[in-house]
């Protein structure tokens, strides 16, 4: 059997694992945590103010106009939904592929998914002219005579896809946490903590019979989440692909969007992990450089995928011979918004190529910076798709420009405040590494006498 590098460093035992991870919740957090939280909440406040003003005075406060009817809100919605894909991907797809290294990052990745989807979900509601009526997008029985929604509209598909995705990934995340919550409950000295985590853990006991069903359900959820996660971004891409607009009306969008989602999602995981490793040094034993390197490899691969998508879009536009298409893509690269196109290409295609080099794959500061660039690039990808297609479509008479206002920036940067507030609170109060999943693989790749024992699946070591 080839020797593999350990998944968890630092000669951990089951007990120390519990101490490490439950400890984070039990200890009182340090100043840096509060500093971070304060910063996040500052941004959150900006978000609330900006969106509050928009709801109160009207969409007109943002840069959207005729002909550019969609702006920052939709761009940022797609951005966050994209981010929200890596979590499920790591926890579900890698789970199905039996990737042991997923164990230590799965929990945080799922949390990221849930929070990203929550953040994303706000935007379609807030971008409408009358957000207080946005619930009309739900087909609920009503007394207004026969009155249903338009199931032909991609926006209704969105409602179903995003809400399903939010529900399932939240459930997946929570079910995964139940045993760890039980751990914290049982370790608790403090009455209230015992009670709260007691409720959260649903009174989990960890008997073999429960584990038997539990594992089955976990696998089922993984199996269901995989097609789901692929469908969600495909459907989000339909928002554009189903329209008649040149630059939107493209069959390549679903795979292209999914690839982009994975790309940005992993970038965000790398960003977050680099931060957490600093914030909570204990993570360094669980989320090792190997983990980071694996993710960086995926980033590079998906980066190449989106690069390919960009190229083929141009080819098809030329090949189709449709003058509207040809024009829109010329306009993308060399029109008044050309700069955004080149930002996108640089951040998404060129910069990730650094990951060909082991040095960059394994250097935290570097990968942090690169992952930030990837996120910027992916935001601009949606910017390019949304704005450049809208601002010059069929009739030149109605061509126009889109100029963001201070409220656009408030909505965009503010949304990070919402996301990070949630994420930091999660790190603080919930088991941010899945103990019940790490413990079985604790000894993988270790040769400290427990070596063989690590492969707890199947064979029994005895001495």
């Amino acid at each position, binding site marked *: 059997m080839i020797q593999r590098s350990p998944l968890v460093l630092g000669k951990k035992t089951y007990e120390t694992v519990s101490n490490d991870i439950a400890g984070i919740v039990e200890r009182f957090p340090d100043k840096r945590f509060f500093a971070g939280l304060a910063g996040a909440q500052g941004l959150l406040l900006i978000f609330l103010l900006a969106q509050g003003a928009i709801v109160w005075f009207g969409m007109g406060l943002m840069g959207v106009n005729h002909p550019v009817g969609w702006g920052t809100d939709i761009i940022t919605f797609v951005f966050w939904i994209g981010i929200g894909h890596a979590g499920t991907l790591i926890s579900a797809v890698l789970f199905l592929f039996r990737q042991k290294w997923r164990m230590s990052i799965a929990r945080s990745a799922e949390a990221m998914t849930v929070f990203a989807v929550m953040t994303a979900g706000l935007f379609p509601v807030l971008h409408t002219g009358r957000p207080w009526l946005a619930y009309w997008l739900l087909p609920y029985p009503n007394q207004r005579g026969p009155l249903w929604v338009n199931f032909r509209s991609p926006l209704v598909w969105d409602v179903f896809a995003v809400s399903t995705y939010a529900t*399932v990934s939240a459930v997946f995340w929570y079910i995964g946490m139940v045993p760890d919550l039980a751990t914290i409950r049982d370790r608790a000295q403090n009455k209230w903590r015992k009670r709260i985590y007691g409720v959260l853990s649903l009174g989990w006991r960890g008997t073999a019979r429960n584990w038997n069903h539990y594992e*089955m359900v976990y696998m089922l959820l993984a199996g269901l989440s995989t097609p789901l996660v692929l469908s969600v971004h495909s459907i989000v891409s339909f928002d554009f692909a189903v329209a008649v607009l040149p630059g939107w009306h493209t069959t390549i969008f679903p795979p292209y969007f999914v690839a982009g989602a994975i790309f940005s999602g992993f970038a965000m995981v790398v960003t977050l992990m680099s931060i957490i490793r600093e914030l909570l040094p204990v993570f360094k034993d669980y989320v090792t450089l190997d983990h980071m390197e694996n993710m960086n490899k995926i980033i590079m691969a998906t980066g190449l995928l989106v690069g390919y998508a960009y190229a083929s879009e141009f080819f098809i536009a030329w090949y189709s011979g449709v003058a509207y298409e040809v024009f829109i893509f010329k306009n993308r690269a060399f029109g008044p918004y050309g700069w955004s196109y080149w930002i996108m290409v640089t951040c998404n295609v060129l910069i990730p190529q650094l990951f060909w080099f082991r040095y960059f794959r394994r250097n935290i500061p570097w990968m942090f910076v690169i992952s930030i660039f990837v996120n910027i690039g992916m935001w601009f990808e949606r910017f390019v798709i949304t704005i450049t297609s809208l601002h010059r479509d069929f009739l030149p008479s109605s061509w126009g420009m889109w100029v963001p206002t201070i409220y656009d920036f408030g909505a965009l940067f503010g949304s990070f405040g919402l996301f990070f507030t949630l994420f930091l609170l999660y790190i603080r109060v919930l088991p941010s590494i899945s103990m019940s999943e790490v413990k079985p693989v604790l000894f993988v790749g270790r040769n400290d006498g427990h070596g063989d024992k690590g492969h707890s699946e199947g064979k029994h070591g005895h001495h």
Partner: protein
Amino acid sequence: MDIIEKLIQKARPTSRNGVAGLWMDEHQMVEAAAKIRAAGFTQIEAISPFPLHGIDEAIGIPRSFIPWVTFTFGLAGFAFGTWFTWWASAVDWPLIVGGKPMWSLPAFVPIMFELTILFAALSSVGALIFVCGLPQVDPPVIDPALTSHKFALWVPEGSAGFNGPKLEQMFKELGAGEVKKAEF
């Protein structure tokens, strides 16, 4: 208020007395479980902080039936999605939208798909909650470390083939670090 009280009472598991053995090493525990079962003990509970492989065979737990639930409800979700989109747009409120047919099947596929997934996923979790008898309030705890780093076997008194002294004896022989009478 009292409704909540009732619910809480309902969720309080009734615990029985029994004998428990605690291990530090999960593999020893799994082997022990198999041996104890071979020795004629019928009802054996194995408690561990994470799923143990081999324990199912060791104490004879059948494969989980939940996939059937998932499948059934998934099918139901699909059927509902198909029927509802058709009924709403072609029967109950037929309107000319974009010149498309009243029943624009291809356009409804995403709805059908999402409902399939949603029903399947939620039903599976529901089933899990149900079969595990969750939620439970203040479940009896043999040892708090059982959700952290210890592993336990427990046999209820009076279960078929129960023999207290023999059991304690076997536990010790099979390497249990601690043996005690415990409610569970």
